[in-house]
């Protein structure tokens, strides 16, 4: 799992303002569908990447996830979409419109995924959750997210332990689907029942420590001039992206 403890992007910035800025930017990047808007999105992404200090490897790892289906889509588009022929290779004809659409699509996806990666890997997860609470996300949803984040490593570890135990007892030695389907439901059921008992205790402990609906007071400081300046910068880039896109640039 990625390290979500945070990086350089945290110093002296009010979490709600920062989250709002990122949300605005990421949302406006979905508008980028022309050369100019894509250039602005790419420049903003590059600037954030340099400021965040996260490694290129982390970004590339995330970009690899949708890479194969998107590559197939782009190839199909380049070969089928449009009238003008850009290049002919034997029976294959690469079309201008499809190729351009593919380039814009890939550019937009790279910008969005990189910015999302910066948001989730360079800012502590708990800080983002508190910012979400401060921005009006229901307390119940935040509690669910907090408790789930706390319980996911436990559930994953429990599943591993139960699978190892099943193998040691002679179940699930084979790697086939039938063998898997024989043992997996019992393991999932066991983890669910154990987890249900355990999370109730964790939740009670969280409430005692001051988390939970109604117990949490707003601990955010008032946004300073620097925070407002940063949010304005995010908003300006977002507005530029939307305007450029509306003008078809």
């Amino acid at each position, binding site marked *: 799992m990625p390290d979500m403890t945070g990086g350089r992007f945290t110093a002296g910035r009010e979490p709600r303002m920062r989250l709002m800025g990122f949300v605005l930017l990421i949302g406006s990047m*979905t508008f980028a569908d022309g050369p100019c808007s894509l250039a602005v999105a790419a420049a903003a992404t590059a600037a954030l990447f340099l400021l965040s200090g996260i490694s290129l490897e982390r970004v590339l790892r995330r970009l690899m996830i949708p890479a194969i289906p998107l590559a197939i889509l782009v190839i199909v588009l380049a070969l089928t979409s449009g009238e003008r022929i850009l290049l002919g290779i034997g029976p294959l004809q690469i079309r201008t419109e499809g190729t351009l659409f593919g380039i814009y699509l890939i550019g937009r996806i790279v910008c*969005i995924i990189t910015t999302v990666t910066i948001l989730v890997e360079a800012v502590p997860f708990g800080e983002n959750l508190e910012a979400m609470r401060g921005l009006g996300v229901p307390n119940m949803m935040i509690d669910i997210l907090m*408790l789930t984040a706390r319980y*996911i490593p436990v*559930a994953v570890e429990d599943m591993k332990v139960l699978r190892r135990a099943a193998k040691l007892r002679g179940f699930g030695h084979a790697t086939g689907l039938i063998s898997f389907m024989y043992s997996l*439901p019992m393991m999932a*059921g*066991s983890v669910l029942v154990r987890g249900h008992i355990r999370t109730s205790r964790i939740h009670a402990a969280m409430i005692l420590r001051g988390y939970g609906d109604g117990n949490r007071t707003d601990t955010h400081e008032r946004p300073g001039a620097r925070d407002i300046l940063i949010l304005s910068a995010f908003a300006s880039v977002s507005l530029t992206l939307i305007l450029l896109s509306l003008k078809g640039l």
Partner: protein
Amino acid sequence: MHLPDGLLPPSICLGGYALTGIALSASLRIGAKGSYNRSETVPTIAVMTAMFFSLSLVHLPLPPSSIHLMATGLTGIVLGWYTLPAVLAGLFFQAVMFGHGGLTTLGVNTLVIGLPGLLSGLLFRFMTGRGDHIPGKAGIMTAGFVAGAFAPFTSSILLTILLMGILPITGVPTSVSGTTIWLPLAYLPLTVIEGIFTAATVWFLSRVHPSLIGLRINNA
């Protein structure tokens, strides 16, 4: 099944968030009208969300490739009206931790994956009845299979409708977007496997912890 960031136009992303917000608010309200107990409800949703997340990491060998479970049917059976917040949280963590799906498409993905899960839960409740007894093994397993298979199959149909409607708007020719009509067929193996998995898990839970799937023990 997860749509990645950047694929959908902004209007669809915003619409997805708006509809998810409405559906989420409605399901929380209806859920709270039932037997709502905060100290019980939040941990149950959290543990099921963690299971939903963990099961998506388990890859089942299906030569020549492998598939992973979605467990939305099981989520619906355990959580009922609280399925949507669990699916939203699970998809959020999948997007944040592994980049599966995306944050801009979170609303749309929640609707496509979560709504069938919610309907699966209601279907299971309908099939097992509301009486004070646990139905027989065949009854529980049949209801589990139907509910478990219903969720991924319905999700694949919703995804097909969505892609066939949206891709042409974004510039993808209809000859390409039209091929998504085969999507439910591609998800057929997963549908059957999810059905079997849910049936077996529900049977296990009915023996060990029946109240977790909304069943009551008959002491009469």
